[in-house]
């Protein structure tokens, strides 16, 4: 067998093993289900419904002052909307967008923490290292077991979110207003890259720590750039349009590739076994 060729049967076996374990791990599974439910269904649903009953009248000056800080293209877009519609679109289309970066990052890093550091903690890694799988096959299988659920959660969350915001804000908007082109690019291009960043960071962090908790806490720092994105957007510095999302996605994929390259170089069973 060509030693540089991946044995996909072995890769799938590693991924299937880790996915089965994730399916049966409440501490990993619960946040993956509950957090999206709260962030993508309950909160946006409430905002959509409130949008129709809200009296913006007294706050109209505040809203107008706030909108003057926004980038010109966004202001131009909002000219077609009533005050209530502006509020709904600003919150549900723009403010919630970064949630779809946090979600895949969090899902991927949570599973990867269990798959890499957690496995060291549970002392279940050694038998895996004695199999004929190569280091690359082992790592690829483990990474896929974290990346695939992250993408699935994002896609399912996106479908749910699309239904929830259109239904809940129907009275205000009177038409299907979501998703727009920026969101499609965000979900198909930027979110998978965000999942890759969460995953890659966790693989590197896991090589230095020995417990799931340590890995999860350290790896959580990866959401900091997304927090900056949210602040930049609220401050009117960043306008999430197709071009920005494409550019941010490209940057993130390059960072992912660099992390992946480094992870492949450092993921050595001899290093792992020496730390067990």
């Amino acid at each position, binding site marked *: 067998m060509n030693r540089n060729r991946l044995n996909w049967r072995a890769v799938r076996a590693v991924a299937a093993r880790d996915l*089965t374990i994730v399916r049966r791990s409440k501490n990993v599974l619960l946040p993956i289900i509950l957090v999206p439910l709260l962030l993508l269904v309950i909160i946006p649903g409430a905002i959509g419904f409130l949008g129709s009953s809200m009296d913006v009248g007294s706050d109209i000056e505040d809203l107008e002052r706030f909108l003057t800080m926004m980038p010109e293209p966004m202001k131009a877009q909002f000219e077609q909307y009533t005050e209530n519609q502006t509020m709904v679109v600003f919150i549900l289309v723009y403010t919630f967008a970064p949630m779809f970066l946090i979600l895949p990052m969090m899902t991927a890093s949570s599973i990867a923490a269990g798959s890499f550091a957690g496995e060291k903690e549970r002392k279940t890694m050694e*038998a895996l290292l004695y199999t*004929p799988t190569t280091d690359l096959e082992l790592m690829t299988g483990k990474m896929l077991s974290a990346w695939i659920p992250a993408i699935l959660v994002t896609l399912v969350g996106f479908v749910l979110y699309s239904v929830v915001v259109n239904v809940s804000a129907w009275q205000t908007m009177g038409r299907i207003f979501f998703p727009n082109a920026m969101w499609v690019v965000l979900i198909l291009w930027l979110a998978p890259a965000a999942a890759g960043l969460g995953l890659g960071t966790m693989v590197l962090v896991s090589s230095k720590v020995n417990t799931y908790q340590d890995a999860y806490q350290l790896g959580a720092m990866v959401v900091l750039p997304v927090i900056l994105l949210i602040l930049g957007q609220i401050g009117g510095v960043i306008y999430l349009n197709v071009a920005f999302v494409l550019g941010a996605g490209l940057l993130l994929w390059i960072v992912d590739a660099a992390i992946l390259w480094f992870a492949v170089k450092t993921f050595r069973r001899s290093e792992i076994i020496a730390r067990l």
Partner: protein
Amino acid sequence: MTRNDVIIRTENLTRHFGDVVAVQDLTLDVRAGEVFGFLGHNGAGKTTTVRLLNGILGATSGTVEVLGLNPLTDGPALRRRTGVLTETPSLDDRLTANETLTIYGRLYGVDRGRLRTRVADLLGQFDLLDRCDALVGGFSRGMRQRLALARALLHDPEVIFLDEPTAGLDPVGRREVHDLITELSRSGGRTIFMCTHDLAEAQKLCGRVGVMGEGNLVALGTLEELAHSLQKGVRLEIELDEQPGPAVLDPQTESPTATSPMAALTWDEATHTAGAWLPTRASIPDLIDNLVASGARIYGVRRQEPSLEDVYFALHDSREGIPPEGDAHSGGEA
């Protein structure tokens, strides 16, 4: 590969972890079809050696060859032909026994068409069939050990590394594992490399043993070779009607009944048995003559070969600088 071909060969194999020496200058041959015992206390370097031999750990220096392959550069090809039972079973609680074996079967490259039958056979052989769909988290220690052993044998490996194979097993389970090891070696022609603390187990199963101490191989050979190298002599047990007189007992006396300085007799009142360490088997008739001459009535004489335990502790004592005491570790009758 035929019997007596060298399967495992190391030369000056050394592994350091920073300043800690895990294995130092290990030179060793293991032949095809033999059950080789690898003995030593915790931290002596046994598990590190198994890791080096399977290519999951690189050596600091020295050479190693298993089945004609370099474990570090040909690791995947080698591990397809070796099976390892790790010291801790290394099983995930959230998989069932069936899932565990099926997944590892795929990882070991067991043929798709054969995998299901192979898994069922092993679950049956290790008495796990009725719990095959239960999560491993609910298994007893013995069941885990049996499942881990089944996993190590999934792909019919040519060389099997067993790290404490009977740890946690009840006497029946231990006997079954012992029978399996014997069967694998005799009929299956497998080479077994067994790390163990259990000296009786090693004596029962192993043709040759290597004894590790602080990362060094302190002894290597058959039990007889090791006993000879330690010059433990011959142990004799003599059943008498009463305790022999002082002339026989006192090795320092100039009395004609004295046999040799090594023939200091001990006496066990409960069994009416005198024990002695003699330098060679040629001394046996002299001692018997002396006893008869002193009027002792002899009901039985048993020559005992030194056990692996005798040899192991003698090695341990010599490394600790404790002078040999003949039968110091040979049992309660002494």
